[in-house]
């Protein structure tokens, strides 16, 4: 990775430009913002006559993996926030034939500028909340520490420039953004080895993350036929096709199964960067 020095410098320049453009107005509008980060923020101007909604579920066949306990015995402060069952991992949640924490996004489309609202990433009782989140290129990610102890946030993308920052006490927030599309960016805390999150960075607002019931919604999608891609950290990626009609709700579901555990989980697939009329355009290599 370190050998790609020049590339990283160019990314850095892009990051600087991005910060200069987007840094000014964070904290502004979009009150309906998605604290969970699970849904795409509404695009600024949407003509309801031309858009529809994608709604779907992530199905899960086979035996649901048992929730895993986290050993927080050496971290009394972390463990204190949990009930009698003790701390459980929120990484892989599969129950009742549904799979949560699947990142779904359309491919081959590009959207408008990043919304002004921030996406929240919280650290609560030594877990990331949410565990999987989506964000638009250049959109602000507001990272908050709700625990009164040190967390560091170590993002290790392959295409973007990574960051490794810390939040030593409760109430500290930091703002970060990614200038390039990348699915997914892994995030970890080195102080608490179990803490992991994944951020899907795409250059359009058409993405969603499945909730505990396995459902996701992508609103305000212009009518048309799209390829959608789903990503899960343990069960891999898959794609499907969906046609959206104006004013309608299209359904899209993905079928995961327990025997897909250990499938190839793509992280930060190579991107094609080109200079288009709207500045830098980024496409996943596979779509080009």
């Amino acid at each position, binding site marked *: 990775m*370190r050998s790609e*020095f020049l590339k990283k410098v160019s990314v850095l320049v892009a990051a600087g430009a991005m910060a200069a453009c987007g840094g000014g107005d964070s904290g502004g509008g979009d009150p309906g913002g998605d604290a969970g980060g699970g849904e795409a923020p509404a695009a600024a101007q949407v003509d309801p006559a031309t858009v529809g909604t994608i709604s779907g579920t992530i199905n899960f066949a086979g035996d649901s993996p048992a929730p895993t306990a986290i050993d927080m015995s050496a971290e009394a402060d972390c463990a204190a926030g949990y009930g009698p069952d003790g701390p459980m991992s929120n990484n892989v949640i599969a129950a009742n034939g549904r799979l949560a924490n699947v990142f779904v996004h359309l491919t081959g489309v590009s959207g408008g500028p990043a919304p002004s609202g921030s996406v929240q990433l919280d650290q609560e009782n030594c877990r990331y909340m949410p565990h999987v989140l989506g964000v638009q290129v250049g959109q602000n990610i507001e990272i908050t520490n709700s625990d009164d102890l040190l967390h560091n946030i170590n993002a290790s993308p392959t295409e973007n420039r990574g*960051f490794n920052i*810390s939040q030593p006490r409760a109430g500290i927030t*930091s703002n970060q953004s990614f200038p390039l599309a990348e699915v997914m960016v892994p995030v970890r805390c080195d102080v608490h080895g179990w803490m992991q999150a994944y951020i899907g960075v795409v250059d359009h607002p058409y993405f969603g993350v499945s909730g505990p019931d396995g459902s996701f919604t992508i609103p305000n999608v212009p009518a048309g036929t799209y390829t959608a891609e789903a990503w899960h950290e343990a069960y891999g990626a898959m794609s499907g096709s969906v046609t959206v009609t104006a004013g309608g709700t299209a359904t899209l579901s993905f079928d995961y199964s327990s025997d897909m555990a250990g499938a190839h989980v793509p992280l930060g697939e190579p991107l094609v960067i080109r200079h288009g009329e709207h500045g830098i355009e980024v496409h996943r290599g596979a779509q080009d």
Partner: protein
Amino acid sequence: MATIVAEGTGQAILEEHHPQTFLRKYMFSTDHKIIAIQFLIYTLFFLMIGGFLAIMMRYQIAWPDQTLPGGGILPESMVASGYMLPEFYNSLVTMHGSIMVFLAIMPMLVGVYANYLIPLQIGADDMAFPRLNMMSFWLMVPAGLLTLASFFVVGGAASSGWTLYAPLSARPDLSGVELGQIYWLLALVLIGLSSILGSVNYITTVINMRAPGMTWFRMPLTVWALFITAILGLLAMPVLSAAGIMLLFDQTIGTTFFLPEGGGQPLLWQHLFWFFGHPEVYILILPAMGFTSEIIAAGSRKPVFGYHAMVWAIISIAFLGFVVWGHHMFQSGMNPMLGLSFTISTLLIAVPSAIKTFNWMGTMWRGNLHFHTAMLFAVGFVAMFAIGGLSGIFMASTPVDIYIHDTYFIVAHIHYVLFGGSLFALFGAIYYWFPKMFGRMMNEKLGKVHFWLTLIFFNLVFFPMHGVGMAGMMRRIYDSSGYAHLQGIQDTNALITFAALGLYASGFLFAFNFFWSMKKGKKAEANPWNATTLEWQTPSPPMHGNWAETPVVYHGPHEFSHPDVEDKDWLAQNERPDVVSPAGGGH
């Protein structure tokens, strides 16, 4: 090299007596005195910056649960929600050390005083290679700018400690710092080059350009110290440059010299760094010892006690300085057998330091002590350096080092040597040679207040650190409140921080005195201290070319209170022995 070759003969030096533009005279001057003053302003600026970083650090250590006052003006990558971030603290630790060592103390000792004093004290009209000399200053300027800029790039300034231990320093993914580290390594290469060019110049000048009669053992101890220092720099700096370049490659182009995942060796970095680093420690103290000898002799109105012993002590420190570096690495995983030999050599190197201390006391013994500010600082140096030297014995003993290594005991030790030692001597040197540099005296009253405040606050800051270290407080930690064994010393940490504020504030008293005296100070005579060495036998400040006529030397350097001299208590090195003929001086 072009410069060396292009230098031609000394003709060039003489040609520069012609009138010059402002730019040629004050910016791109080749006059060693102007270059020294440029270095002085430069280093005072970085001394102030380095001190400020320390103050921010101390605030965090003393009150880790408080927000940093005024922290709001700093970017979110340094101070978030009012709290200093650990990565910024690490940058402060790193850059405080780096700036103080490489941009403040070392260039102040060598860049300022080797430049200013070597030609004047040996009776030369300038350096051997004046243009190389100018280059060595102008290489420091981009180095300083890179250093300052590194705080404001993405990821912040270097944060792996001034020792830059690999792999942390070579792995941006682990430290969070990429550009800052690269900037600092580039600055380090520039500093290395500047230092090497300087050393070539100083050594050549001392070897080949001494005035007639200035034999080796008639050289003032300052020149001896600066000469040996230049040799240390010449031989140690390139190793750091080589290692720094390898580290830079590890970080940027993907080599693995110091990265174990590619077969490299983290300990190799430490060996190379400390092979440079320990001679560097002596680069930082030998000149200070030279100034002190000089000032104490003049202040006591006595020849330096044991001049030859002093010279041989300097030389043996320099030799031993190359074989003790392993004592920084006793707990590093180095072959324990090496630990044993490094212990012995380290304890041996304490002997010449002891010799020097006793000789300074011997110089004061039965003297006629004039306590002007410079003398106060010089005596303060001896008192403080003694503490620093003695606390070093704890570390030299390998078993004790197991416990105190990487604790505040080490921090206390290094500051007793570098602040109580080098910086005290430097303050003394500034007060002592200021009249020669600027033709005006510094204010003595303010100077004395500055001395006493510095002495008191300095000891309040650094003496308790021995205690903090004994209690087991690790170096470079951002918040000690999470450790049961450190609960008892938090009030000490707060005391240290208060004293550090006082220490920093008293620095401004000095800065005021310095700049005020430059303009408004009392006019200085050629020889305000009635001193014997050559620089005092030419006007203050000296003219371009230094001498109306080349001085001829007849005595050793510190002929004070000679019994056969009736009307005064000093005999300049170039005074004809008409009245008396002290037998060659020096014996």
